[in-house]
């Protein structure tokens, strides 16, 4: 009987070798795949229990992990919650992570390859791995000024401010109101987090919406800058030449009230075939002029110009939703417009939609001699010991207009502040270029949207700002009146010595 016993021994050996091989496969080769599964609570808990890096503005943390005495060891804190929530996002349990917390998760959690050396040192010194820090491009004072400006309009204000550094595309300020407290979504009481989230999601004021990048609205007269840029680029007009004006303009193929464009009494020349200086048309924000220019140039040319500034494009990746997709909403310029629609698009109505970030890029591009830079929020990646290990380089998005066109537009926009509708943004001793906008919401029950875009100093631009106020508890919504002072204080905060 020994021969079959030996055969059985070999058979048992095969069984055990199969078990050993399978265990090795499971715990070594397949371990990564199991770890990546979203249902793997062990990995989720471990990620949640890490000492995460901080999100910094200058040296001030706006998000940081503090040790607590519970299962998860560290709690995420947001020292300036409402002001920075649209930027930081929140770090909740089980993948409920948004904003910079989400887009920079690898660095903050310590998994990023750029932190390899730090991780190795932590491993060798037997310390728990710490995540790296993210230093934002935000200017603390500009952010504060933007936040204060929106809040001074009243608690119910819905609006957003974006400030960019024209030469680089650095986001210097990004504020959206109403905002929320990320700590209420990042506590260790998961049921309370869910309740807080449900309440925020149900709030009609949409506090979770980052109006600076997620909410494209009609840009109104601020879009006239794009139409003016297209007109100058076409070669048919010059900045110191004349453009068609007139007190009213009947859009082609229309008749009667609905197709009639007027200027609400601003000085844009008398009669229907008047010609006025280009600068005056911008200073007085002449709807008739820009409707005519748009019809003359055509929807395609206008759309092409808009796209060079960033319309119909995705270009901002630093803020992400829980799914890891960019939260930037695409600003749209519709295609296949008929002539009357083109006329309306010429002054930022019909289906033209822009976010404050997009309009800030338009003025930043003009301020930067026509070069539109890709906007970004992450200034530096730092190790846990605050050594800079990476700093993203500025990237050019496009050359939207020629430097000559940019110079001509700048001059006209300076005049608009000095002599025209954009007066409230004027800063003594500094040349400011700016443009107002008051966009019809298109619905009777929704008040118009107030816009203001500007940059300064005009001869060496350091900051470009876009202010959008969707609604506020004030008697009259007007871009210059509401947005101008906010833009001014943000620019002053950046420029102050």
């Amino acid at each position: 009987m020994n021969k079959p016993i030996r055969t059985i021994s070999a058979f048992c050996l095969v069984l055990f070798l199969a078990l050993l091989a399978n265990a090795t496969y499971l715990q070594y080769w397949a371990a990564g795949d199991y770890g990546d599964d979203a249902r793997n609570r062990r990995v989720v808990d471990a990620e949640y229990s890490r000492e995460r890096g901080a999100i910094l503005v200058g040296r001030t943390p706006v998000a940081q992990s503090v040790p607590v005495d519970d299962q998860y060891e560290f709690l995420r804190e947001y020292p300036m919650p409402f002001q920075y929530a649209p930027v930081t996002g929140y770090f909740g349990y089980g993948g409920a992570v948004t904003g910079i917390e989400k887009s920079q998760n690898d660095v903050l959690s310590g998994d990023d390859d750029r932190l390899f050396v730090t991780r190795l040192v932590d491993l060798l010194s037997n310390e728990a791995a710490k995540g790296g820090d993210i230093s934002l491009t935000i200017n603390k004072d500009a952010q504060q000024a933007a936040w204060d400006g929106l809040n001074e309009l009243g608690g119910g204000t819905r609006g957003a401010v974006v400030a960019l550094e024209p030469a680089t595309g650095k986001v210097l300020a990004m504020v959206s109101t109403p905002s929320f407290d990320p700590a209420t979504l990042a506590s260790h009481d998961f049921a309370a987090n869910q309740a807080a989230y449900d309440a925020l999601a149900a709030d009609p004021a949409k506090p979770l919406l980052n109006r600076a990048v997620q909410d494209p609205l009609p840009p109104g007269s601020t879009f006239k800058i794009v139409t003016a840029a297209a007109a100058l680029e076409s070669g048919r007009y010059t900045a110191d030449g004349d453009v068609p004006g007139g007190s009213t303009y009947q859009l082609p193929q229309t008749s009667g009230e609905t197709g009639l464009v007027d200027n609400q009494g601003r000085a844009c020349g008398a009669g229907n075939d008047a010609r006025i200086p280009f600068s005056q048309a911008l200073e007085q924000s002449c709807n008739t002029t820009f409707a005519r220019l748009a019809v003359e140039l055509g929807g395609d040319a206008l759309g092409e110009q808009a796209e060079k500034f960033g319309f119909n494009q995705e270009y901002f990746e630093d803020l992400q939703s829980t799914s890891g997709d960019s939260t930037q909403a695409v600003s749209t310029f519709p295609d296949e417009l008929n002539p009357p629609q083109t006329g309306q698009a010429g002054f930022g109505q019909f289906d033209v939609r822009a976010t404050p970030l997009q309009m800030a890029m338009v003025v930043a591009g003009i301020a930067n001699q026509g070069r539109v830079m890709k906007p970004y929020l992450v200034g530096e990646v730092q190790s846990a010991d605050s050594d800079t290990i990476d700093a993203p380089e500025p990237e050019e998005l496009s050359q939207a207009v020629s430097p000559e066109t940019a110079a001509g537009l700048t001059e006209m926009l300076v005049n608009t502040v000095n002599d025209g509708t954009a007066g409230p943004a004027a800063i003594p001793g500094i040349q400011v270029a700016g443009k107002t906008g008051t966009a019809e919401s298109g619905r009777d029950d929704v008040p118009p949207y107030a816009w203001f875009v500007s940059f300064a100093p005009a001869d060496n631009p350091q900051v470009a700002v876009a202010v959008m106020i969707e609604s506020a508890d004030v008697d009259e919504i007007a871009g210059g009146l509401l947005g101008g002072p906010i833009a001014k204080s943000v620019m002053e905060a950046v420029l102050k010595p």
Partner: protein
Amino acid sequence: MSSSQPVFIHRRRRGAELVLLVLALCVGIGAYAAVGLGVQGHVPADIVGYGGWLAGLVIAAHVVIRFVAPYADPVLLPLVAALNGLGLAVIHRLDLAKGEGSAFAQRQLFWMSVGVVLFVATLVLLRDHRVLQRFTYTSGLTAVALLVLPLLPGIGNTKNGAKIWIQVGPMSFQPGELAKVLLVVCFAGYLVLHRDALALAGRRIAGIDLPRGRDLGPILAMWLVSLGVLVFQRDLGSSLLFFGLFLVMLYVATERAGWLIVGGGLFAAGALAAYQLFAHVRNRFDIWLDPMAHFDESPGSGQLVEGLFGMAWGGLVGRGFGDGSPWRVPYAESDFIIAAIGEELGLTAVMAVLVCYGLIVERGLRTAVISRDGFGKLMATGLAVSLALQVFVVVGGVTRLIPLTGLTTPFLSYGGSSLVANWVIVALLLRISDLARRPLPDLDAEDDADDAETQVVKLP
């Protein structure tokens, strides 16, 4: 048989056993201390009492072996002690995770004590395993009776869909574990008597020696018994184990590979029929193919996938006691204990445990090879193979090598019936090996030189 082999005098090796036992106790008590350090931050307060009890049990077993089975295999007891000690520590760790009032480890230590008492009793009372051959049919009938017990109303108890428990007052017991030992005795006794009839009468079809139709009787009966277990008790693991066990013993007894072909065919037919007929078999098979797709279902793959997640999370060296979440796996202390070990002690410990089992099986089969009687050979083979199959079925199931069927992991898993039965199995193996390794009584000592010359001639 062995009489034709060269005479090799085995030494007793009891000293080696003692050294190995000390190592095994280091594993068991060390693991218990590590659990305390990892989970609670300090060495458990009862480490002296616990370690003393564990050491006392193991040393008592060793001393009894010294007296009643001095030639027994010296590696088996240390291997079993190490596995049992590690299992206790892991169960204690899971107790701590469950919080106050969870005392599986205490009860397991009690059952281990019962197991050691039965181990000692077996060795002391059973001085020659061949005595068991007299109880061939008695043990067979008892085994079948034990298997049927859980189906009786009043004492039968269904847990997790399997009717494999009996409940008497506060005590619950899985009679299948004991039936396993009795069936090995019964098979060995039957086969050692009928092996010639089974082996010699056969028909050659297509180059394969097939047994006669009338000799198929026992294997068909066994096939029906395992199917019956499968159908009425919904216990896939046990039916697989019984069938595989019988097939292997039949093959060893007859030395006919034809039986393996017949048995393999019957297994395939039975498995196919079970897949077609029973939803729970289909369910297990579908889960095996794609566990992730059934994660949120009920009955689904939640337990299996949590175990896989845990083992993957453990990686090569494990998270360390207290730093994993083995409590996420339902029944981590019984069927899924290998997942808990894989998570907190890593692939390293899983391999070590598997190698320990491998060595137990190897020592058992070696005992079978050197055993001088057919009954001992068959019994040692059966006991060793039953352990091998049980480990393969449960560890393979938990690590998704094969579809999951419930069985306990010998010596590691929580469960009194299993632990006690396995200690008895080790006692039987030690008894067989003691007789196999014991030098032949020198009956011819007073004979004259003629015999010596004869012996010289016999030498190879």
